């Protein structure tokens, strides 16, 4: 695929964001081409999550522009949103709905056709045995898995993942990496906020480190990405996560 300037999957130019008097982002410029998977590193409060939320249309930049496939995140929110798969820090589930009901709600809100196979997604994330149980009783890791199932519902071209590995066990981490690798193989880009590199070994093309609201460095991932053949379904990353 030719990546012209406008065909960048994720793009930020001088993005700055202020909360009250505090500058959380001070002019961040990054570019991700289609198919590229990038880890976003940085200390607590460095602005990683803020940047992700700006790409996720949840915050407007105070200055600068951010684009998803050429669509301005502040102005063309609807176009941006139809590209996004966003996994926030919190799972964003409804405690009094069951696992399947939560997924069905997501599917309806996404405008997916009825009869989308929700149970298959639940099976895949290992929640097949609790399909009809309420989320209130789920552990943090199970809630995380349910959020992953919701991510699987649509084949988003851009994944924005905020510390996706938190609360996940080894199998869960592996599953998460499979989802990322599949999205990458299908030509989608992913921006993954991390506070440690280990779980994402073999998944990332490169890492970008943010220090105090600015991009401090951008370098290839220490362990190169294990690429899937487009369309191939996972499993290849299994070895890398050990």
């Amino acid at each position: 695929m030719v990546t012209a300037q406008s065909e960048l999957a994720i793009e930020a130019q001088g993005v700055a964001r202020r909360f009250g008097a505090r500058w959380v982002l001070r002019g961040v410029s990054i570019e991700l081409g289609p198919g590229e998977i990038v880890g976003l590193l940085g200390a607590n409060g460095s602005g990683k999550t803020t940047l992700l939320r700006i790409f996720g249309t949840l915050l407007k930049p105070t200055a600068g522009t951010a684009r998803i496939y050429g669509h301005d995140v502040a102005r063309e929110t609807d176009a941006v949103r139809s590209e996004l798969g966003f996994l926030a820090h919190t799972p964003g589930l409804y405690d009094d709905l069951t696992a399947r009901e939560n997924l069905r709600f997501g599917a309806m809100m996404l405008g997916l056709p009825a009869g989308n196979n929700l149970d298959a997604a639940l099976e895949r994330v290992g929640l097949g045995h609790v399909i009809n149980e309420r989320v209130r009783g789920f552990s943090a890791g199970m809630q995380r898995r349910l959020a992953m199932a919701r991510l699987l519902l649509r084949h988003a071209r851009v994944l924005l993942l905020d510390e996706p590995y938190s609360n996940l066990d080894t199998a869960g981490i592996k599953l998460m990496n499979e989802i990322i690798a599949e999205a990458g193989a299908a030509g989608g880009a992913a921006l993954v906020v991390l506070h440690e590199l280990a779980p994402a070994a073999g998944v990332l093309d490169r890492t970008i480190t943010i220090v105090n609201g600015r991009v401090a460095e951008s370098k290839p991932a220490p362990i190169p990405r294990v690429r899937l053949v487009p369309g191939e379904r996972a499993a290849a990353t299994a070895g890398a996560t050990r």
Partner: protein
Amino acid sequence: MTTDDLTVQVPRSGGWAAFGVLSIAALIATQVFSFVTSPPDVNMGQLEKIMYVHVPAAWVMFICFAVVLVYSLRFLWKGREEDDLLAAAAAEVGAIFNGLTLILGMIWGKPAWGVWWVWEARLTSTLVLFLVFVGYLALRAFVEDPQRRGQWSAAVGILGALNVPIVWMSVTWWRTLHQMPSTMQDMAKIYWVGMFANFVTMTLVVVYFIRRRYEAAAIVRAAEHAAQAAALGGDE
């Protein structure tokens, strides 16, 4: 969004200080004029002199809230921060004159009606309006993020202004349908001259007030933006 959109223009004080002195002098002049020229009323004696401050205060309050409506709409439409600051300045000045209107109404009401408060249509509507804009100012005090504060208070300001005629209508019906006589009397023409003159000069004073509040708010925002620019590395 470019950095140009971000800068809040620091308003220049320029001729405004002179404008302020002149408008306050004019207000004093028209008040003295109306105070001296108005003959005592047959029924109310000197009491009607209160009307020269009470009624203009009520009118300028409406002007303030109209400004809130217009600039709130404009802020939502164009997103310029100045419009938000101007709407907020007008809301504060409006609330001050709204409160003044209420107090003057009560001072008038005690000798005229024998009680400090009656649930008369105008007075009651004014009280409701006061509460609406107290809510507006409270909301602004409770929200820190400038964008959120701007959009939320614009919505509250617009709905509040929209509610003014409805409140007025409902309160009036509420009174009249229960056969309460209107307590305000029609006044002779000579009173209107003084009243109108006072209204004009009080409007000038209010314009000056809004402008000062706006200037202070804009300078604060400009200082914040300057601090931002420094934080962003001093680039333009």
